[in-house]
């Protein structure tokens, strides 16, 4: 079920990536597809995350003036790196995921810029500024989207929430301290 949900989230992310820049120029600094790919990689299913990275990257490249396969290349690499880190380090806490999405964004941008430079295609924007804005936009949007995904998608979180609520209720019932007679 979670696989279907992440696939739907990825399709929505690709559609947003295709349309949002024409609605509002600053939205171009938010990489929606990267946010979902990093989320998928954090679920410890590396193969799925890598395939998602390639497919979403190709979908973005096809409408971009850049090289076909460049975004797919950088996102595949990012998905692999994040899933490897998630395998070794406990990253279930939202606060720990914020630096991960920030680092993923920097790596993605640097790899994307790097492969273009390597193949003689110079992007027509200032590199430092673009990476900085992209880092801010993607990290802020990523944090908000992760909170949303955690609360609406994750069965585990829902289960955990239910457990904690029932524990609080039962502890209240068992409270031996009586304030009034």
């Amino acid at each position: 079920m979670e696989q279907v949900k992440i696939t739907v989230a990825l399709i929505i992310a690709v559609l947003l990536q295709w349309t949002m820049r024409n609605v509002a120029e600053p939205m171009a600094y938010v990489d929606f597809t990267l946010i979902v790919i990093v989320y998928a990689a954090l679920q410890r299913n590396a193969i799925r995350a890598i395939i998602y990275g390639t497919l979403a990257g190709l979908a973005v490249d096809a409408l971009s003036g850049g090289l076909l396969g460049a975004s797919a290349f950088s996102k595949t690499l990012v998905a692999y790196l994040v899933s490897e880190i998630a395998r070794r380090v406990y990253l279930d806490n939202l606060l720990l995921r914020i630096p991960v999405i920030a680092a993923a964004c920097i790596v993605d941008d640097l790899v994307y810029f790097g492969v273009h430079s390597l193949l003689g295609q110079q992007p027509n924007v200032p590199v430092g500024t673009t990476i900085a804005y992209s880092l801010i936009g993607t990290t802020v949007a990523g944090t908000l989207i992760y909170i949303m995904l955690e609360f609406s998608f994750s069965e585990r979180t829902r289960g955990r929430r239910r457990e904690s609520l029932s524990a609080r209720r039962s502890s209240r019932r068992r409270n031996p301290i009586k304030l009034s007679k």
Partner: protein
Amino acid sequence: MVERSQQEVWRLTPWLVIALLLLNFVLMAFDARVDGGQRVIRVWTQTVADFVQSPVTTVTSSVMNYFSSIATLRTAQTENEELRQRIQELEVELEGTRDLATENERLRKLLGLREESKYRILPTRIIGRDPSIWFDSAIVDRGSLDGVNLNMPVVSSGGIVGRVTAVGPLTSQVDLITRDKSGVGAIVGEVGESNALGVVTGTSKSDLLEMRYVSGSVEVQPGQIVYTTGQDGIYPAGLRVGEVVEVRSGSATTPHVILVRPGSKLESMQELAILLYEPPKKPEFERALPNVEKGRR
């Protein structure tokens, strides 16, 4: 379905990553070859994306128009009075122009001249912008079904905008002149009146172009207008490119470097026009030259 153990998955992953990275690298290397052709994957993705981009653009532009019309209502009364006065002035001018037009038509008939357009103009609208922040291409809502072909020039009221680089049945992709790989044969001043010939290319700034190879012995001043020469085989001659904003003077042996502000507002434009223009065929002797294949790319 075959269930794989976690260890097996982790063993398999690096190989899959290497395979996918190689595949993407081959795609990139293939795409980087400057052969002027277009990729099937781009064409089909554009066609699919059109079903999302067109409705989103229609809805957002109508919402924006609604709010901007509310904002303009505030200044409407003052504007109305000014316009009434202007109409009266224009009516007087119009009378004079009518006389001139009749005279012009009469003289044309006398000389046997016919009014004819050099190329057809296809109005179009931007429905999508480059999804990556690193580049600045645009998707427009006209495709091969409307007669659009690769490399056709795209213009706006301010001047040239770019050229068509991928054509789907319903949509086309336009690469802007601000891209560093773009090159427009241009001249400072009107063709035939100046010899400040050069090539306009993109810079790392979206609102600035660079004109190179203009002889250092030719005088160029800021404020002069840059036009196309038609020698690049893409843009017809006489279209406005932009205005000279800075000249880094060269010498008798080194060329000028001229900064040009594009005539079109490339960041905010929505309505464009595609010129259904086919460049004139090269003469036979030129096609027989040994580097002809390279030149055609």
